[in-house]
């Protein structure tokens, strides 16, 4: 499944609908759905929020991976940003030291089974795998 998405949070509804169809078509265990939804949203939102030098659509791709799923998000005409290089979040910090920022990419890296990054010709592609159960 491939779909181009405009750079708007309004596309999150469409992403959820596409993921619904993909999970049903490929009979992927619903237990991993929350992880997949969260990781797609965090990566998509990060691209929309920080890759502001382009108006190009973001390409979302989903393919079956064993009993699970492989997802890629590709952003065109942007700078390099490997989500694995995002600053660490101290989840043990007390409340007054905690800030909302940075948590999304931290969660992605923690929750996926694997993550891969490619950058070439100003095209940034993040691919992750969530294994089925």
């Amino acid at each position, binding site marked *: 499944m491939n779909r181009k998405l405009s750079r708007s*949070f*309004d596309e*999150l*509804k469409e992403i*959820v609908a596409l993921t619904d169809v993909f999970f049903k078509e490929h009979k992927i265990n619903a237990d991993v759905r*929350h992880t997949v*939804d*969260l990781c797609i*949203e*965090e990566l998509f*939102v990060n691209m929309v929020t920080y890759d502001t030098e382009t108006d190009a659509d973001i390409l979302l791709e989903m393919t079956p991976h064993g009993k699970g799923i492989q997802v890629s998000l590709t952003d065109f005409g942007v700078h390099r940003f490997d989500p694995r290089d995002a600053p660490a979040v101290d*989840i*043990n*910090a007390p*409340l*007054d030291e*905690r*800030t*909302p*920022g940075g*948590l*999304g990419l931290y*969660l992605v890296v*923690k*929750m996926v089974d694997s993550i891969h990054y490619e950058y070439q010709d100003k095209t940034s592609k993040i691919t992750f795998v969530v294994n089925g159960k």
Partner: protein
Amino acid sequence: MFNIAINDEGVVAVEGRLDAAQAPRAQEFLDQVPDQCTIDMAALEYISSAGLGVLLRTHKRIMSGGQSLRLINVSKHINDIFSYSGFDRLFEIELADS
């Protein structure tokens, strides 16, 4: 779909998906609730980091007044996100019956 409302006992009920598109509306609502607040998450299907940010900002505001924010009827998969985020150490959390 996302809904947020407060009942006569002052319990805030959230329903649906609290994602980046809905977080501003949730924040606007929670900024108006008084100190000492309980959020019923029985019907919350999904939360992302944008939703966690709403909870964190609200918790900080309420704690600064010497009060507390309770999260009740939290499902297992929402609680997993809280655990990964360290929120299970910051909030008073009551899990839903499984």
